[in-house]
């Protein structure tokens, strides 16, 4: 098994959208070749990208009618499954009650 030594650089910045936390990982030899400014630039780019994304997130896609209908089907299926589980649970409780009485 070959071991790879990595340097972890923690990135933390309090932005208008809350604390942004990230990590940068460098191989040992790679890290030796980088200045503090180089690493700072990468870290800042991560922060800036995150803030920019919070400010201008991808436009959410309005669900299609088919997707809404599928969602409805899933909900109905969940309700049906819950109803079945409820029946099973009631049966179990009833059975236990009967057994307890018999005991």
């Amino acid at each position, binding site marked *: 098994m070959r071991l790879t030594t990595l340097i972890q650089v923690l990135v933390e910045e309090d932005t208008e959208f809350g604390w942004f936390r990230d990590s940068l990982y460098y191989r040992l030899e790679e890290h030796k070749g980088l200045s503090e400014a180089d690493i700072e630039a990468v870290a800042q780019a991560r922060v800036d990208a*995150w803030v920019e994304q919070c400010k201008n997130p*991808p436009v959410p896609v309005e669900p299609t009618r088919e997707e809404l209908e599928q969602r409805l089907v899933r909900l109905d299926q969940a309700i049906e499954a819950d109803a079945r589980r409820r029946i099973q649970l009631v049966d179990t409780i009833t059975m236990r009650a009967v057994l307890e009485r018999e005991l």
Partner: protein
Amino acid sequence: MHWWSGNGGVNTNWNYNSGGTTNWGSASGVVDNIAPPTAISDVVFDAASPTTNASNISAAITIQSLDCNGYTGTLTHSATITLTVSGTANTILCRFSAGMTYTPLTPTRALALLGTGDFYSGGHTIGNLTITPSGAGINQRDALTTRQTATLTIAGTTYTTNNFAITTGRMTLTLTTLAAGTSTMTLTRSSWSYSTGETPSLASSTIVMTPTTGWSFAGGGYAYGTVNISGATVGAGPFTGTNTFAAFTYTANAAVYDWISFASNFTVTGTFSVSSSSNLYRVHVKSTTRGVQVVIDNSAGPSFAGCSNMDVEDIALTNGIDMSATDTGNCGGNGSNWGFKAGINKYWHKDAGSFASATQWFTQSNGAGSLTTPPLPQDTAVFDASSIDAANPMITLDIERLGSVVFTGCAACQVYRGLSTGHYFYGSVTLNSLLSLGIGLVAGFRGRGVYYFTSAGLTITANIAVDPLTGSLLLADALNMPSYYLGIISGTFDAGGYAVSVSTFAAVAGTTVTASGTWTVNGSGEMWGVGAADYQTFNNPSMTLNIVGGAMEYSFSAGDENTYGPIHFLAIAGGTYYFVGSGYFSTISFAGDGHILFDDEMVLHGNIILTGATPSGLYASSVDGGQFYSKGANVAQNATLSYWSSLTLSDATTGCTDGGNNAGWIWHRYSKGVAAGVVADLDTSRQRSVPKSIVAAINSLGEIGRIRSVLRVIASGAVTASGVGRVRTVPRSVEASVVSAATVIIQVIVKQSARVLNRFNRALGTLGRWFDV
């Protein structure tokens, strides 16, 4: 007996009866127009029967027997019509002659056989066939073939194949005894289903299944001879029943990611062979329910030599098998009796290519040590500094199941999805900021240990499903997938303190989610869904959640009784949010016009900050008159609140801001843990039990009065008692006024000190037992 006379001419329906003319005679070759057959009729077609026009079964009919021996004409069968032959009186129950023509064009031109006797299909292809033997049962006297899409259903006592073959689409068996002898039963479509608790004889038979669609094998728990399955379009099973197979062979469809699943333990005595001819399309052998182990009893020492290119998951063996000479994949959950080949690092060399190509992989970096198999689920696929020479080559990720994949240190390359299905990683994934990722479908993390995902600042362009069962997936850095879905299916997802940006987040029952960083959710529809508290661990009070959305409808399912950190609805822009579930929240802020609906009880320990952009532009309401408790300092502006059965908010004296243009708000007075000089007011208008207990509570506060504080009791708007310093008891007159008052406000002014505040809070806690605060 009824003999076909065909006297109706072109009117050949069995039930033709017009002007004294029918198609039936009382003896062979006799034309005497007897009435059409009934349920007690023995119907005969023989060499003397006319053949000019086809005899047609135009309406459902039941007869006692049918014998077409010697007939060379044609028998046709109208659609959706069933010919039922039900009898016990004859040796021949139903016989089609080889020389006749009988071609039901669809399966719905059905045949039903009931009772006892012999059945000859005469080599003709039958439609749907239902056989219901009784007594001594029904004997098959020649090879039986139905239409490919037809179902052969046998229910009753005994059906004996007499070693003749059966070829049909599906077989559904609920009979006591299928005496299959050495018959080969070929099922071209779908299922084999045999009910449990019967006594079939199948141990010398052969079942051949060549399904073209999803199918299953419900074995009923019996001893089978040879079961040979091949050519499934995709997916096999589940196999149910604690069956025993003398020889079990599954030959996967080597053109798709095929799989075979088992729902029950089973035994193999002779051979067990599951194989795919493709390195790329390896067959996945698994339990029907992931995480629930199925045991193969191989104590009789069956051969596994035919197995190839299979990945095994949740399948255990009773006895050891050395598979280390094969490239059998270990996806976990398999117990210790499989002697899998140990996982190794497999190094990519080099540049463009396909994951599934064995020629791209080596045992050492820089192209040394060639391999014949791409990485297995127990291996680690490594892209290192020697993997890429060319400028940004394209690498196709076309293996469905992989172990760990590491891109640390490799040069820039493009990684594209090569499957129409998802990818599943049974280990860690470490990306590299120089990668370009193509759009994927699902990246599933299924490793059952503790594994990491390092996205290296890349924007992930695939949905992620975390499904490690008892394992954990930990983030090693921030996760950015703003247009894709993050779902926690099982196990633990630990985001650590890292930022997470997703389109939609869901965590289902039984999972644990740990997060303390800032999450941003930017999606549509069901953008946040957390399961119920009974099954869920989602207590992340130090997590900040930003919800970003547009002018559409969303749901935020908080689960029940979970604890959240601050939640900020950042840019609702006219959207509607259904806030489903209850829980404990620190702060909820909502900026912009829109509608937020709460449908359960909420306890808000921080602020609710609702600031609409325009007057009356923001609505916050309860779907069904739910409860809402706020114990923070709150801000509302341009907001309308409605449909609440219970609402308690702080007022301006405790730091809350009525920003104007608000409607429907009830500004009650309550604050816990106040600072020096602040009046803590308790509204007892919602007093709910034991009025006289008020006195005890007031006296409790009076104890605090000994420490330089002010106590004032206001009953129905009038001050009934006040004191500075050592106020220890309340006079009887005050007690009476308090008990009879419509509203009581108790004010306490305390000096700021931790000790005082602690005592004050304890006293408030005492009051809280009696007042609905």
